[in-house]
């Protein structure tokens, strides 16, 4: 799945940007030198999301919030009748009832959905994202970042399938000013 993710091409972008800046500095008078402050906000990573990204960010947010709140009714309303999930440690499919029993019966933490991508194929939307649980308080170990792929039927707004994996080296979250996380 194609993914416009700054961290994966980050080093190439940084090099390209550096070369461009170097070239620009050699031809521009000193008075017009462009300068980006360190840690500048804005730019591609925080741009105006497309309709699809906005739509599925909102949908995934509602879905995750319902799971976190233990709102079985809301979660079920978003699942297709034949919903299945495949995740570690077994790659076998788990149906909605079993999955909900496990999910809603365990303590879920707040978290961040990031690096969300959408691919629309006819009536299906394949949505991928990284889910980063909030840091654990006290001595409890923080849960790992997960890579989630959701398959939605667009016409019904129902989740057909979910695939979850735990990447060994998830791309780092981009640094942001304090208060944005």
């Amino acid at each position, binding site marked *: 799945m*194609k993914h*416009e993710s700054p961290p994966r091409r980050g080093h190439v*972008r940084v090099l390209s*940007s550096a070369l*461009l*800046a170097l070239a*620009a500095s050699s031809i*521009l008078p*000193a*008075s*017009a*030198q*462009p*300068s*980006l*402050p360190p*840690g*500048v*906000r*804005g*730019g*591609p990573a*925080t*741009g*105006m*999301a*497309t*309709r*699809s*990204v*906005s*739509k599925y*960010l909102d949908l*995934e947010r*509602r879905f995750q*919030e319902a799971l*976190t*709140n233990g709102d079985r009714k809301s979660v079920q309303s978003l699942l297709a009748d034949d919903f299945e999930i495949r995740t570690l440690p077994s790659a076998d499919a788990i149906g909605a009832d079993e999955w909900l029993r496990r999910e809603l019966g365990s303590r*879920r*933490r*707040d*978290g961040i*959905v*990031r*690096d*969300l*991508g*959408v*691919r*629309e*194929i*006819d009536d299906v939307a394949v949505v991928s994202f990284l889910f980063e649980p909030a840091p654990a308080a006290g001595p409890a170990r923080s849960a790992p970042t997960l890579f989630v792929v959701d398959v939605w039927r667009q016409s019904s707004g129902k989740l057909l399938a979910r695939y979850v994996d735990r990447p060994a080296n998830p791309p780092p*979250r*981009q640094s*942001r*000013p*304090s*208060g*944005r*996380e």
Partner: protein
Amino acid sequence: MFMKTTIAAASLSLCAGASLAAPPSGAPVAPQAYGAAAGMHHEVEDLATRGEPPMLGIHWTRELHAAHQARTNRTVMTYHGGKIMGDPSVKAIFWGSSWGSSGDKIAGIDSFYTGFGGSKYANTTIEYTDSTGTHVSPNSTYGGHVIDTSAASGGGSTSAILAEVCKVITSPAGSGNGYYPVYTDVPRGSAGYCAWHSAGTCGGVQVQFAFFFKLDGDAGCDPADTSGLHSQGLAALANVSGHELAEAMTDPANPGAWYDASGSENGDKCAWTFGAPLVTFSNGSQWKVQGEWSNAAYNAGTGYANSSGQKGCLSGG
């Protein structure tokens, strides 16, 4: 098989707090009435009803206060200490070899920015203040456009776009309130964003700037303007131009100014929602532009709902 691919990097924080019933709708309170009070931390909801004295200083129970704070703080925008824009000084840059023949886009963008200043739409931003209590100014001026027919780069490099701004804007506004939107002829492709804004300096002078893809025939960035007043490409650019300028006015630079706990700015929080079929600008031009977030309207329950059902968007119509 028809496939559309839109990919983006985005982050979003999720709220696990208890849900609360929405406060009862109060008497309509114009955003301006909140003024500086709307600026800092919204710890009190306006439960005023028409004809009744305002109910202020609500002392919530511990549980409700914590949950209310968690929910409110994630919904409203808060101030992060940075600058806001004074009177924006706008000059559009059209970059790319195909701008020699642009249809209605160049004249249309000229009209858009000419009419933006002093419009009700621009006024949706004025409730936000900086640390001195100074409000965002809606009184933008438009200094026309520049066309650069050299080959444009895409939006992946912020510094490349800033370099273009510094190249063609030889005398940026000395006030530091210059805003230079760069309209390229580069199609969006698989990028998950339509445009973005940022800030930097040219020769030591603070500038704000924005990048726009060519949005002709791009359903992912199309407001679906059926008025017939503008070409599809111009209508798309106008909508995202409103989004980016409103954000640049309220959260222009580093450190940031106004955004919510997930990093969403006023334009983000109302993206792809339209409170009015067309919004009339100060020069009589009409545009289908998204709403902009208002903390004041949200707290008063007088805004229209964004895609999350939060009634804090103002159409400016």
